[in-house]
Each structure stands twice: as C-alpha cells, then as structure tokens.
C-alpha cells in the first residue's frame, strides 16, 4: 500500500465518513455517486474523499441497520440503488453529531493555548 493512501485513510477516520454519509442522507435518499458529490460539494472540496471508500462505509451502515437500500431510477432514467436513512439511522445521526461536536470542542480547547503561545 502506498504512503499516500495510508495518509488519506488516516485523514478520514472511519467514524467521520460514516457521519458524513448519514448527514448527507438526512436530506433524502441518494445513490452512491450523488452521496460522494454531495460530500465533496458540501465541504468545498476540503475533504478529499476517495470515492471508492464510500462503499465499504455504506455497507457497514446497512449492516448496522442505519441505512436501507431500495431500487429506483435516477434523474436520467437509469437504474440505480438509492440509499435511505432509517429511523434508527436518524437517531444515530443525532448521537454521532453530538459526539463529534464534543470531540471537536475538546480538541479545539486543547489546541487554543498552543496557538496563543505560538502567536505571542
């Protein structure tokens, strides 16, 4: 495996991608490509998701029962699989978001003094 690849994996922690997917699906059912696009677009291309890693994550979420799948046709009449947030997934999104906020807040609090020191 290449070094770059590993970096990408480290940058995008497993839980993070799951959270992003769940968040995306809150807006409504979407197919795989649309989810990838939405994440890229929503983050202003800051988060570079390797689109392929979406699939193991989606399957994990399906297995946990947070996301369901249904067959459908896409905007241009092509067959597509639509991923949909389940009620359980919706609850989980709340939990995950909360968790993330606390984590981010905690890390921010720790990092602040360092920044101040370095600025002074």
């Amino acid at each position, binding site marked *: 495996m290449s070094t770059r*690849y590993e970096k990408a994996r480290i940058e995008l922690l497993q839980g993070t991608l799951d959270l992003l997917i769940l968040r995306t699906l809150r807006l409504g059912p979407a*197919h*795989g*490509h649309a989810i*990838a*696009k939405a994440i890229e677009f929503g983050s202003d291309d800051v988060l570079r998701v*390797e*689109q*392929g*890693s979406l*699939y*193991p994550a989606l*399957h*994990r979420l*399906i*297995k946990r029962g947070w996301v369901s*799948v249904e067959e459908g046709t896409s905007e241009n009449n*092509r*067959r*597509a*699989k639509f991923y949909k947030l389940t009620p359980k997934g919706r609850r989980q999104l709340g939990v995950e978001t909360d968790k993330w906020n606390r984590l981010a807040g905690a890390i921010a609090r720790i990092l602040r003094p360092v920044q101040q020191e370095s600025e002074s």
Partner: protein
Amino acid sequence: MRRRTRMLSDLDQDIQDHIERETQDNIERGMSLQDARFAALRKFGNVARVKEETREVWTVVWLDRLLQDLRFSLRLLCRSPGFAITVVLTLALAISANAVVFGVLNALILRPLNVPNPDSLYAIETGDSALGYQSYADYLDFRDRNRSFDALATYTVTKVVLDTGKNPSRSWAYETSGNYFDVLGIQPSLGRFFQSSDEHGPDSAPYIVLSHAYWHSRFLNDPAVVGRVVHVNRHPFTIIGVAPPGFYGTFSFFAADFFVPIVNHKQLTGRESLTARGNRWTFPAMGRLKPGVTPTQALTDLTSIGAYLEATYPKEEEHKTFSLTRPDLPNFLGRPLRAFAGGLMLLTGLILLAACANLGILFAARAADRSREVALRLALGASRTRIMRQLLTETVLISLVGGTLGLVGSVALLNRLSTWQPFSVPLHLAVAPDAMVYVAALILALVSGFLLGIVPTRQALRASRYEIVKGGAADRFGRRWTLRDALLVVQIAICAVLVMSSMVAVRGLVRSLRSDLGFQPQNAMLVDADLNMAGYSADAVWAMQRRMIDAMETLPGVEHAGLVNLPPLGPGGSGVTSVFTDETADLRPSNVAAARVYVYNVSPGYVHAAGTTLLAGRTLSWRDDKNAPSVAVVNRQFAARVLGSVTNLVGRYYKMPNGNRIQVVGVVEDGKYLSLTEEQQPAIFRPILQQPPLKEIWLVVRSARDPEQLAAAMRRRLRELDAGLPFEIKTWNTELDFALFPARVATTALGVLGMMAAMLSIAGVFGMAAYSVSRRLREFGIRIALGARRHDVLQSALGRSLKLMVFGSVVGLLLGMLASRVLAVIVYQATSRDPLVLAGVVLAMFLLGLLATWIPARRALSINPSILLREE
C-alpha cells in the same frame, strides 16, 4: 448469509455505475472521453481493494481465519501421512472404547425406564435376607395398608409353554399384578391391558398381553390376534392386547414375550405360592408416591407396616428394613453393575488419557522440529494467539477425524451388542446408541484435541525465537525433567494399571473355571423338560420322571442319570429356605440356625450324575418316599453351620420353618449355587418323592460319550416316552455360560483394554526413544568415531526412556493393586497379591520396553560414523 449474498451480488454493477456517472460528469466539464474515464478511476481509488473491504464488512472474520487454519493444517497433515494415520487410528481406538463403554453405561444405568415420569416411580426393596424378593401375601398387605403410594404393583418372571395351535414353544413371561400397567402409566398399542378390576381371586384372569416384539415375531403384527384364545401350560388364555413398542417390562436386561396376571400363578406354575407368606418370590413392589409424600415419609410408613407384619406373623416374618430404589435396577443388581461400569469407564478414560499423553509426546516432538517455522512466523509478526490457534486447529482437526472414525466403530459395536443373545434367558441390552453417545464422543474428541494441542503449543511459544532462527533447533536434552518425560511416565503408569487389571481378571476367570463348583460340568448333559405341558397328574409325574431317568440310565455309555428341580449356577436360581436346629421350639425368624439355605429337590441318582463327592453317610434312594421318614443330604457348610460339626452327624435332625423334623442321611462337598463370587452357602438336597411333584425338571446325564451323539440318542429315547413333551438338551458347560457371564464380560473388556494399553505404551516408548536417537545421531556418530563402546552409546541413547519406563511401571503397579480391589466384586478370586500376576505384569512391562526400544537401539548401534559425518 442470504442478506450478505444479496448485498454483494450487484456490488460490481454499482461500482461500474458510479464510475460511469463520474466519467459523464467529467465529460460534461469538457474533458475528452479518455481523460474523463481516467480521472473518474483515479478519484474512485483501488477498485479491487474497495470490493475486498466491502466484502469484509459482511464476512465473519474468525470463520474465515478458521478456514485458513484448517486448510493449512490439512496441508501439513497430508505432508506426513504416516504420522496423521497413527494419530487418527490411536484416537479412533481410544475414543471408540470410551464411546462403547459410555453407551453401555448410558443405556443400562443412566437411561431411566421407558415409561412416563420414570423419576417418580420407586421400588420397595426389603433389606432382609431374601435379596429384595418378597411373598405375594406380604405384597398384598403393603398394597392395602400403605398410605404413601398411589398404588403398588408387583411382578415375577416365569417360563411357560405357549400353544397357539401349532408348535407349542417355551416362552418367558412376566406375571404381573393387575394394576401393573396402570402404575407404569403406559398405553397398549393394540387392544387393552388387564387391570385390577380383572382380578377376582386365584386363576380368575386368563388374559395375555403380548410384548410388541413377540407380537411382531410370533404373530407377524396380525391385528386380529386380539381376542384369540391360546393355551399357556394347557390352560386357555385370551389375548387381550399388545404392549407399546420399546416396553420390555420393568426388570433390566430381561425381555419377556408376554404379560399374564399374577393371580393365575397356580395355572402358570402349578405352585400354591400366592398364599404362602414365608415364600418370597415376587420382585420388589413398585409404585408412585402420592403428591406431597416424601421418600422419607414413605419409608416410615413402610417400616410401621413391617412392624405390624412381624407382630402378626411371627413365624414367617422377621425384622424388615426398607429402601426405595429404581424399579429396573434394584440394589442387588444395580450396585455391582454400577461398580463395574463405573470402574470400566474410569479405565477407558485412562486409556484415552494415556493415548493423549502418548500423542502429546509425538506432537511435541513434531513441534520441536517445527520450532524454526514457528519462530520465523513469530519474528515476522504473527501474533501468538494466531499461532496457537493454528496449532490447536491442527490437533482438534485430527482428533475430530479420529473421533468420527471411533464413533462409527462404536456405533456398529453397540448395535451388535443390542441384539446379542448369549444364552437361553432372553437378554435385553438396549444399548443402541442415542444422542448422548454422539455428544459424549464429540466432547471426548474435542477435549482430547485440546489436550493434545496444549503441549506442543506451550513448547513452541516458550522457545526463544531469536536463538532458534539463529542457531537451528536448540538441543535441550540436557534438561533434567521435561514435560515430555512426565507425559511418558503418566502414560506408562496408566498402561501398567490396565495391563495389571486385565491380568488379574484373566487369572481370576481361569481360577474360577478350575475352582471347585461342587459338581463336574465336564462330561455331563442337561435336559430341561417341562411336564406341565403334557398335563401329567401328580402320581403320573413321578412315574414319568422315573421312566425318564431309567431311559437315560440304560442308554449305552451313560454312567449315571439323575434329576433336579434347578441345576446349581443356572439362570433359574435356586429354592431357598430357612432352617432351625432340632432343639429350637419357638420357630420365629429371629431364632433361625441358617436364614438362607439353598434347597435342591433331587432324585437318588443326582449326586453321582452331578459328580458331587459324598463325604459321609449315604445318598438318597427310591425308598425315601412319602411313607418313609423325611430325610436330606446336606453340604459340608450346612453341617458346620446348623449341626455344629462335620463328623458324626449322620442320623441327626434339623427343623424346617413349618416344624417338620428332617434327618440328615449324608454329607456332600461344598459347592457354588447362585454365583461364582458368593460366600460359601449351606445347601440341602431333598428327595423328590417327599416333595410336591415337580413339573419343570432337569435331567443330569453323566457320560464320556461324544455330546452330539449322546444328545441325539437321548432325544430319540425321550420322544419314544412322550412325543408331546417339550424339552431342550445341552451340555452342562453351555448352561454354565450364564454363571460365567459377568466374569467373561469383565475379562473380555479388561483384556481388550489391556491390549490397547500395551500397544499404546509400546508406541509411546518407541516414539520417545526413536525421537531421541534421531536427534542425536550426529553426536553418536562422533562418539563412535572417537571409540565409544556400544554399551555407552546404548546407555545414553535409551537409558532415559528405560528409566522413565521403569519408574512409570512401578507407579502403575502400585496403583493397579488398589484398582484390582474393585475387580474382586465381579471376577471371582481376582486378587492383585497373586505373585504370578505381579511377576506377569513386571515381565509384560519389561518385554514391552524391550520391544519398544529394540528398533531405536539397533539404529543407534548401526551408525556408520564416516557416512554420517560426511553428510554435514
């Protein structure tokens, strides 16, 4: 699993679609087709890896790893087929021995009677001298006076002649109380059962219930059989029903052909035993406790009835103690059976343990050779648990294969055992394997697999990986005491115990075959005849018996012929009485001179025909009839116990419980009467002419002629006398099979175990010695080249194995002496203090050691140093 396949089935298509969409987007952004596709692929990442990771989401990781380990283990085992086959066969043998013994134990002891709620069914065993038997009159009192049981049923076992219109044949029947089936709570598979309401006094219920098996074999499952009238001992009986399949009656080991009401006892046997209170012949009464009554309360209740009986019938009753047992396994049968089966289970367990120790040594040696591989894998980053798992997978895999093989063998053996009929009494061994046996074998295989795996795993993981990778296998033979050594000692000790047990048993059997039985079964034929069938009246019976004896005596080559009611050591048991000294005036049971005296009703010629030695006085004669004074011939033990001396007692008297004085006219040698293992018992021989006429009789014919020819001549003569008389002719030795059965079974079982143990110890010592020699070949080569003597080389090559072997044997010998005490219960005259046995065990272990070290020793001595050293 199905969800997994569904989810993964169109993963490829999903990924394709995704990439196409991305490509389309790129084209819309203005890229060329090719660039758009490359960009899409780049953005997607490694397609194969994505698929792999997605698939992993749905896979159970441990299962996957297990499969990997299994594949690896299989490859390894296939690479050394000799090793694999040895291990599998050893385990198969050990596990099948265990499964067979467990199957028997399970069927005969653990599995309850085949009736609804067997646990609430209790039998009342009386603790007096009658081995749990009781009189029918007592049964009635217990049935009507107790306040603890819902109902009490009793039964006994009888041999009768059944005549269905063609070929009258002898069959075994249960005579049961009317409430028998109701107490058991079973339902007929056809027709109805008889009930309490069918009993209206003696001979009032001429009904038959067939066992399912007999209905099948004799009546070919004919449903019209219900209502048919057949003749039992010439009395008409109506078949009213068929018992359910799988129900063989309540007494273990015994399968009767049909059930008849016990109130018809007189019709069935010609005896008036129903009212004789002192005549104990029915099996322990059984019943279900009333709701809320505890066994202790029931025992108190029974004891008070016992006290009442003792007070009311002082002449017949003595102090009674009671215990509640399982109806199918009363204590007199259950105790020795449990002791033996438990002992055997222990020994076979030891065999398996020895096999595991043995194979553990082999695996450990293999692991030592593989330590390099293991060390390399550890060094490359394999986790210890992973390596341990792989090693365990290997041993468990091999033991499962061995276990399966063993199970197949034991199932075949058990199935054969369950249809086994070694003698004339219908034996019922319901040992066909059930789920318990399969589970037990599986557990044994798994446990032995883990046991096997622990040794090499410990060894492999303990080894320092750096040293091994650097310098090759470390030579650890300098260590004083390794786990392998301990295993070898354990194994040898176990094997010595087994070899010793089997020798003790075989020796005991040989002795009991040669021991003094009080009669000579060699050169004697028995005729088991039934005069019931021919319908002789009392006087005609005597005349016919006389004619039969004369007919036998006049056959050419016949030395003596006589008649007895039941031959000693036969399946029919023996008559029993208590006797009093002549001086006793108050004939209550507490004053008896001997409570348990075996009674044989014999014709004058019996003592000579049986080959019993007359010690003093005379034998009986035809003049000892109804009009002559009552006389008896007694055995030596009787003389010593009742009359107080062995000499000068001819002409003295003793008293029967009914007050009759009987004169002793002769004394014969002691003998064995019920079983080979019994203590010496008193016995008396009474003339048939002074007894009620016997209808079931045994003729004893002594002749040196060829048994087959003689039997043919006897058969012709008997047919001439009465063509309709049912009889069987056999040699006395054949009839003794019954008495020798427990000892033979024990000896066979222990013999097989002993052989297995011997094989295992050879394999163990051989493996150890061969391994140690092969590891040190180079060292020996150098030593021989430097001029070491053969003796020194041998000593260092095999000394250790031999020392361990001696040590193990001594430990085993000591343990064996303890173990054979248990054996003495079953095998007559089994003692471990027999010098011959001790010498035999020592010799056997020595020979085993010699045999096992022979090849490794040859190999160590045949080393050619020049070749060996050149190889390196």
